[in-house]
């Protein structure tokens, strides 16, 4: 045992010296460069494996560049770790993450402009300030839409009146007309847009939650549950997802990330369309649109920046963008990739694009955190019947304002 431990220690200690020699040689020739990329992709839906495959291919084509992929379990973990790493002076060289991270990273001055890496005019809308663009869109969307089981719904509802009528007919026994993640504010925002409201005033940072539009929205979602009873009494993401997959829910409001999974379960029986228009306002619900963005931390040296530029160009090449559409039903970040054959042929992606047309870009400002936190608990209380929409809207506003003040 002692010998084994001694041997292991010797091997572990000797490796750095061997490896250090190798690194020295590489640096001496000034050819090799090693970069580290952090990604939020997970292995459950195969996106991490796909990302790793892309990186392997890139390294084969660029033998002087080594890319190390570090997977972060959640997007919050990626955000927190990146902030901590930045404080410690050790940052990765590229971030593959969600667009809403741009807000905190920009405020903390942790990322650099990406204008030097690609021509941003060739991409869908990105995070911009007067000083430049801050992220390269890898994919766009991340938006909510109405998905339905064609076995239960032949013609999807186009207005909320139809949705309620159809929902009541389809809610029988242990089957529900509609399911969605009721207490998550991300699912409330589309309806708020449908009632003509927004979470921020025109300046983009002042919360506007105590408004007639918000009160109407809260009344509407409360009615779906308590008056029309077309949604379960309590329903989180997992419950909604399971009910829909098991055929116990006719319709679900879910995001584009779930399309691949539902396509596997339902095949041709999966219908995708817009969330129905709000009958009283004649406005389409406006889900937030965002996407997966590539961000470059500040302070990386020139050699690494050049390697990162090559890697970003590869990720946003038409070939990779097509692959994203074909394998994961994600809408591309590169505008030229919108001619992908699958986008023209697939009814699922057509439905997703149809919804995207009325989406609204998700604010990436830091204040959004306070808005989410302000809405969530009060929304749950309205659904539970413990607060009226008027009371809840007032509390949401006060809470968001307090949260924003705390951030200063």
């Amino acid at each position, binding site marked *: 045992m002692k010998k084994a431990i001694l041997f292991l220690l010797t091997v572990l200690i000797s490796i750095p010296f061997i490896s250090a020699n190798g690194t020295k040689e590489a640096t001496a020739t000034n050819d090799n460069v090693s970069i580290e990329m952090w990604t939020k992709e997970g292995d459950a839906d195969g996106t991490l494996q796909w990302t790793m495959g892309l990186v392997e291919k890139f390294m084969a084509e660029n033998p002087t560049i080594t890319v190390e992929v570090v997977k972060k379990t959640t997007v919050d973990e990626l955000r927190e770790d990146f902030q901590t790493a930045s404080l410690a002076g050790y940052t990765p060289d590229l971030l593959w993450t969600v667009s809403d991270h741009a807000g905190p990273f920009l405020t*903390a001055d942790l990322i650099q402009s990406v204008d030097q890496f690609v021509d941003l005019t060739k991409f869908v809308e990105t995070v911009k300030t007067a000083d430049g663009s801050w992220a390269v869109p890898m994919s766009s969307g991340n938006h909510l839409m109405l998905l339905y089981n064609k076995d239960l719904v032949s013609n999807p509802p186009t207005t909320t009146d139809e949705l309620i009528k159809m929902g009541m007919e389809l809610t029988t026994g242990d089957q529900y007309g509609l399911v969605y993640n009721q207490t998550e504010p991300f699912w409330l925002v589309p309806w708020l847009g449908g009632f003509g409201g927004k979470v921020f005033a025109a300046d983009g940072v002042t919360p506007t939650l105590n408004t007639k539009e918000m009160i109407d929205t809260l009344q509407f979602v409360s009615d779906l549950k308590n008056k029309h009873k077309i949604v379960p009494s309590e329903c989180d993401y997992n*419950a909604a997802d399971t009910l829909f997959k098991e055929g116990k829910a006719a319709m679900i409001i879910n995001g584009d990330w779930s399309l691949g999974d539902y396509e596997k379960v339902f095949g041709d029986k999966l219908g995708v369309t817009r969330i129905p228009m709000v009958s009283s306002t004649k406005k389409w619900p406006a889900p937030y649109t965002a996407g997966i963005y590539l961000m470059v931390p500040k302070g990386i040296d020139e050699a690494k920046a050049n390697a990162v530029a090559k890697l970003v160009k590869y990720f946003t090449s038409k070939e990779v963008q097509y692959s994203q559409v074909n394998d994961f039903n994600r809408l591309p970040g590169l505008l030229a990739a919108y001619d992908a054959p699958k986008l023209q042929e697939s009814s699922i992606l057509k439905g997703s694009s149809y919804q995207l047309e009325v989406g609204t870009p998700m604010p990436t400002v830091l204040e959004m955190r306070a808005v989410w936190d302000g809405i969530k608990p009060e929304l749950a209380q309205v659904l539970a019947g413990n607060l009226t929409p008027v009371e809840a809207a007032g509390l949401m506003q006060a809470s968001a304002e307090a949260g924003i003040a705390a*951030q200063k």
Partner: protein
Amino acid sequence: MSFEVVAKSLSQIGVTLALILLAFGLVELVIFFVYNKIFKAGDKALTGMLLAPALIGLFLLIVVPLIYELILSCSNMNLHHFKDPSFGITYFFDNIKRVFTTKILKQMTFWPLLFQTVLWTVIQVTFHVVLGLMLALILNSNIKFRDLYKGILILPWAMPPVIAGLTWRGEFHAEYGFFNIILRKVFGDGAAIPWMTDGFWNFVAMNITNIWMGVPFMMVICLGALQGVPTEYYEAAAMDGAGKGTRLFKITIPLIKPVLAPSVMLGIIWTFNNFNVPYFINQFMLESSDILVTALYRAAFSYNQYGFAAAFALVIFFILFGISIIYMKQTGALKAVGD
């Protein structure tokens, strides 16, 4: 995974190990030299050399973070002042003042939240000790299948808290959770409890979960202590006509107190600082289920108020420190360590 990646990972571990070994080797040499050459007390060198790794470890893992926290609490650090925070004693007082005077959650200020945290801790520790002791007394008697019961009762302790917390959250689901299914079957549809949306019931759900998770620890501690109590005392008490209650309060509890008292102190500290259960059961939905550490988490990681959060953490630290000192003086916990 390519050879290069494996080699790089191993090399990182190897470098760290090599550096730690090298550093400790140097420290040991210095201590040896100082004792022998400067103090001329070579016979004491071994004591210093043996203590050095633990002292250095404690310094790096406890003293340095505390100093860093103290420094951070004297700053205005947040995302707006992330790379260039200002430091000064006025920031420290401002941060401390904010802890006590402003809302540390959306609606709640420090004092109601402290009361909530104390209530949570008292309920938990009481249930843990009473139920743990009861189960230990049963397991310490001659019952059939004792080892089997012991194994089953210890299971919650063996389960990772994250998994247990999420599983329990599922069981409190209004429609598909175990509790409401049973309640509906027995008492009808109206009997379902809104575990996730009602403040009182959410607090009850939190407590049920943590009682389930915490009792096994206290049970094991009590069982260990009970097995050290000589049976002769009970035989003598029985001969004198002492009943079960008298034996419990006059023999058992006094004799297991040296073991029980430090465990209760640990229980108080762990429960006061328990983040997992309130987080997984409540998920920041209801302020009535928040405790000080969940508020601290929000300040530090949701709102990135690093300076304020450091001051807040110091306040929590000193509250716990005070409680521990008072408790130790009252119960004589850790007296054995001093002796």
